[in-house]
């Protein structure tokens, strides 16, 4: 603590002489620095609480918890593999949908639309980010799932089902597919805004050089602008992936619930986050609770890794401050 404050005092040399003798400044620095310590302590506390909460389950199942299936609250046998697979399936599925649509939308907003339309369209898509996830869940559960059941799931079952077993499921409506689609919509604003910010930064000279070489507009967009903005777009995708892995309520409302490995994309199951949300208040024993916390710990570790990755990718982009998540 003392050393941190000392470091802090020297960090702005132009103020050094004045700060050293000033009591008010010492208090100011102490207050601000201790706030940072409190926040870091909360952050560390989250990890400690998760580890202690997960400890009984960890002692019983060890790391095998991660690779085992089976979820039996009566006989106290737990394995998180179905939820880990479910999390990856839902997140990757949503990323494929949202990544494609989002990137193309960002290209449209920056390169195709007339200038007067760019602002309003961007703003409308940003509005998607202000819709709370429970509202997405409501829409997913009451509107989207029945719609998918009647259309896409029916089609998949009849036309692809006989050949590809992954699509050969009963169209329940709620299930992995509904969760994937609703999650994709939630990721759109993040991907569109961040990709757009990266595309805007492409210098005009580089594009003009492309035109000068006789390239058509699309070639300039696809072979020059998008590759140039690559780092920013990757950063956007990683941030969106972090969000997708942790999204809870909308997924919990649309994924149906189930404790087995997904066999088809129409099955009902859980992700790590949604199993905690749906089962937490149903726990019947301490071991069950501990197994859920263990799921939370796995989720925490995964999202922290993804977000640290995203932070460094986005920061490498340049010295960038306006670049928000």
């Amino acid at each position, binding site marked *: 603590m003392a050393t941190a404050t000392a470091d802090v005092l020297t*960090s702005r040399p132009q103020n050094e002489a004045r700060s050293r003798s000033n009591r008010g400044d010492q208090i100011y620095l102490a207050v601000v620095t201790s706030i940072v310590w409190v*926040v*870091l302590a909360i952050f560390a506390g989250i990890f400690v609480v998760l580890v202690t909460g997960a400890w009984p389950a960890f002692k019983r199942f060890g790391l095998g918890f991660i690779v085992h299936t089976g979820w039996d609250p009566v006989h106290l046998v737990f394995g998180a593999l179905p939820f880990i697979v479910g999390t990856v399936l839902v997140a990757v599925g949503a990323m494929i949908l949202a990544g494609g649509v989002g990137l193309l939308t960002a290209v449209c907003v920056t*390169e195709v639309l007339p200038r007067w339309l760019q602002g309003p369209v961007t703003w409308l898509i940003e*509005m998607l980010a202000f819709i*709370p996830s429970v509202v997405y869940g*409501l829409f997913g559960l009451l509107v989207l799932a029945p719609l998918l059941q009647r259309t896409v799931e029916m089609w998949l079952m009849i036309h692809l089902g006989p050949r590809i077993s992954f699509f050969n499921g009963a169209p329940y409506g709620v299930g992995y597919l509904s969760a994937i689609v609703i999650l994709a919509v939630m990721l759109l604003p993040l991907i569109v805004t961040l990709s757009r910010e990266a595309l805007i930064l492409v210098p005009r000279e580089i594009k003009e050089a492309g035109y000068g070489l006789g390239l*058509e507009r699309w070639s300039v967009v696809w072979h020059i602008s998008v590759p140039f903005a690559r780092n920013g777009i990757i950063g956007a995708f990683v941030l969106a992936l972090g969000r997708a892995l942790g999204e809870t309520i909308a997924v919990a409302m649309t994924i149906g619930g189930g404790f087995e490995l997904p066999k088809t994309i129409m099955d009902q199951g859980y992700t790590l986050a949604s199993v905690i949300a749906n089962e937490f208040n149903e726990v019947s024993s301490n071991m069950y609770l501990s197994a859920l916390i263990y799921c939370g710990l796995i989720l925490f570790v995964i999202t*922290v890794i993804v977000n640290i990755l995203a932070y460094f990718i986005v920061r490498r982009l340049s010295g960038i401050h306006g670049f928000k998540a």
Partner: protein
Amino acid sequence: MASKLRTSSRSQKWRGVVGFTFTGVATLISLGALFSILAYLIIHGIGAIDWNFLTKEPAAVGEAGGGIAPSLLGTAILVTISMIFGVPLGVGVGIYLSEIAGETHFSRVARVSINTFIGVPSIIVGVFVYFILVKPTKTFSAVAGGLALGIIMIPIMARTTEDVLRLVPNSIREAGLALGAPRWHVMLHIVLPAARAGVITGGILAVARVAGETAPLILTALGNEYYPTSLFKPIDEITLRILKYARGPYDVWHQQAYGAALILVFGIAIGSLLLRLTTRTQSAAR
């Protein structure tokens, strides 16, 4: 590049037409998602909203009528508690990152941690508060819910505060310091007032964000059918109410869920509109 130049200009043109059509379709899908959600909320929700809906307690299970007044009140209480926890800590961290942090290890750890903190799923924060507050006190409570929302607010608040403080030109700080003002005085009376609009904007953004949080509240505030009587008892919140009604089997509940969602989205939209206006005036002032 040479190989691309060699492609005949006709195939290039076709690829362009197809490519741009795809981008247009993608944009229509994105906008369509927004409009269909809003349309459903308005069409199904507007009928549920009347004076009773805003002022009454929920009706008995499955019966028509009744309102969401306890949820609205609970939301206000939870957001207030969350601001008590979240705003000072968030602004403090923002001040640190913008004004004080240097190239020390501690600064670097703080910066990475805050940026990682933003991405931690909110349900994890709910688990944390459950163990430090709900389990020891043996009851779900408004305080626990507010604390969870406050913790979620901290990194959002910190990030926006840092960003707006960086917009304040250094010459202003130097002018203050040159007049002999101590750093805290410059911060409190010059820099913060200059960035006031932006900090308030950040606050609105953070409130809009936590007002829509549900996952951590399942583990902390739990929900309640009645008006809140104590900060140390379970309390209702609008998203918990939407969750309950959406999952219920009754059409009345579904309609009320749409109504409550419409109110929530409307509230947040107004907040974001304010946000847009204030940021615009600020950038105009620059």
